[in-house]
């Protein structure tokens, strides 16, 4: 059973007089109670997937292929009214910068209560009581007083807690978290990730799609992970297997380039070259110009994502 089903999603951006693919034929399912990580470097398309699912793409972007299903609702075909209903109730999102979600002109209490009343049938007193409960749940000290404070009066970590309180206020089935802790210090990051894990997954059975470039965050909180490169998923599987037995040469290189884990000094493994730009995607396997194992066929044929015996999926001819 899946909460969210992304099928052959392709999203394009209009640039320099033509449409360029940022996300190419991406499919995955999000299950209840799991945190699914979408990991990759800048420009790999991970955030574009989030915005495609939320149908919050910029004007110069469009979904040109595939479907996204939230239960029995086809999000790619839903009209604005339907989407408005779903966002904030069954489908929520938090962003890297919590101020994206907060309005600086209104008190925090007003914003939490507004969301509750928009989607749930609550009177003013009940909404206020629920708002208080939410602020307490996300660990805002002196919640009663803080209800009347404005966003600028909160630190980055506290603002992210409030954004999270709003996002979970209607107990969504799916939470999309786009680099939610990237701007925060590590001790605060640990608290926020712990909170997401506890509130959403363990108590609520919500599915979380966690978009991050941080492999440490993935290892610590995700159940499954999709590794993306240049608009495609190149490897998919349980977090333990991806880290202990990475199959795709890109995943291997990414893990090896991390400076830590007692590798003292010595050169870190490099991935030669750089990520191709949108208008310059290589033919065949998009990683082939940088791949140490590239063969002739890699230049021509794009390998499909295939399931291997252990359940891990990989898109690479090495495993044909």
């Amino acid at each position: 059973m899946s909460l969210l089903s992304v099928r052959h999603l392709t999203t394009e951006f209009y640039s320099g007089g033509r449409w360029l693919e940022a996300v190419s034929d991406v499919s995955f399912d999000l299950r209840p109670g799991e945190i699914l990580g979408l990991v990759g470097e800048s420009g790999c398309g991970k955030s574009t997937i989030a915005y495609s699912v939320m149908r919050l793409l910029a004007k110069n972007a469009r979904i040109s292929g595939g479907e996204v299903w939230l239960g029995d609702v086809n999000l790619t075909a839903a009209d604005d009214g339907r989407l408005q209903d779903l966002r904030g109730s069954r489908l929520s999102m938090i962003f890297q910068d919590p101020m994206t979600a907060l309005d600086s002109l209104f008190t925090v209490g007003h914003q939490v209560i507004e969301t509750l009343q928009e989607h749930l049938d609550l009177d003013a007193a009940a909404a206020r009581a629920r708002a208080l409960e939410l602020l307490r749940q996300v660990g805002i000290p002196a919640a009663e007083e803080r209800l009347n404070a404005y966003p600028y009066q909160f630190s980055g970590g506290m603002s992210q807690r409030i954004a999270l309180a709003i996002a979970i206020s209607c107990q969504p089935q799916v939470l999309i978290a786009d680099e939610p802790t990237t701007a925060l210090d590590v001790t605060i990051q640990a608290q926020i990730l712990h909170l997401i894990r506890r509130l959403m997954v363990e108590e609520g059975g919500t599915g979380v799609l966690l978009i991050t470039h941080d492999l440490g965050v993935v290892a610590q909180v995700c159940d499954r992970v999709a590794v993306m490169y240049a608009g495609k998923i190149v490897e998919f599987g349980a977090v333990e297997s991806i880290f202990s037995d990475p199959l795709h040469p890109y995943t291997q290189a990414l893990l090896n380039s991390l400076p830590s884990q007692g590798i003292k000094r010595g050169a870190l493994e490099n991935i030669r070259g750089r990520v191709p730009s949108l208008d310059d995607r290589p033919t065949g396997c998009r990683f082939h110009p940088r791949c140490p194992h590239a063969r002739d066929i890699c230049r021509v044929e794009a390998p499909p994502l295939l399931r291997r015996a252990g359940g891990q999926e990989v898109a690479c001819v090495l495993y044909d």
Partner: protein
Amino acid sequence: MSSTINGAGPLLRAVGLSKHFPLESSLLASLRGAEARTVKAVEAVSLDVYAGQTLAIVGESGSGKSTLGRLLLRLTRPTAGRVLYKDKNIFSMKRGELRAFRRQAQIILQDPYASLNPRMRVGRIIREPLDIYREGSRAERDRRAHMLLERVGLTSAHARAYPSELSGGQRQRVGIAAALALSPEIIIADEPTSSLDVSVQAQTLNLLSELQRDFNLTYVFITHDLGVVQHFSDRVAVMYLGRIVEEAPTEALFAAPQHPYTQVLFSAIPLPDPTRRVNWDLPKGEPPSPLDPPSGCHFHPRCPKVMTACSAIEPPLKATGPARRVACLLFEAEADLPQTKGD
């Protein structure tokens, strides 16, 4: 470490260095006789930087690590204390001495998007320090700029590009080349790889390692990334709210962090290893505002090992081992402590 053992003095030393920023124009306040409010960004920091080594300064936002970096280069003046470069106080240097110091001490900044002049071509950006110091002829300066470009892994062709035409990693290489132009002894790098993707970060760290080896560079690495610290540095100073709370050789620190803050910080790092999941509950509370730091040990309200005395006494940095110092009452001899009742 070798430098301490063979007796050579530190290349750069901070002695009792403090930087307080006044908060508001306090004319009215001072007329009223009120004390001006200040943020103590850096408070009584003493630190030695040895030639050819890398000292990492780590801490979270508001710890004062970037301000400390700026003080070490005299990019800002201290409220108190000195910075000695080869035993000479950089804040009392005369014009000529200062000019000589500035050649030897350079900076690399975090954001290569913001730190390069967008209207200058890359070749000119790298040549500019040479122009300012009137090094050789124009042709020689251009040649050196091209050589530096190649040294940092770019090509002469990049000299004609504007920063906007380069990727983040390439821009950081330009920043590094410009910092190297005058063959400095010491480079202060403030979060040099924080805005880069991991694979580009790896390339940049490798480059910085090679340059250090080739030119015997001394680095002060300001960072919040403990993976980078562990990989790259010889010694580490951990800062919390303007003070150094622990200082140790890198290996010793990672093997056994002593200050409770260092322990909390280390335990909060998300290790890229799903079989070693950390205890997410451990760090409690938010770092307090530097405007209104807690009394005594600044960390005491968040400290899992807090004792009664911690809110009253500012623990000094005390030696706890070879080249190790920690500022925590847990490491004071019991006799030194005033009598406290258990809580």
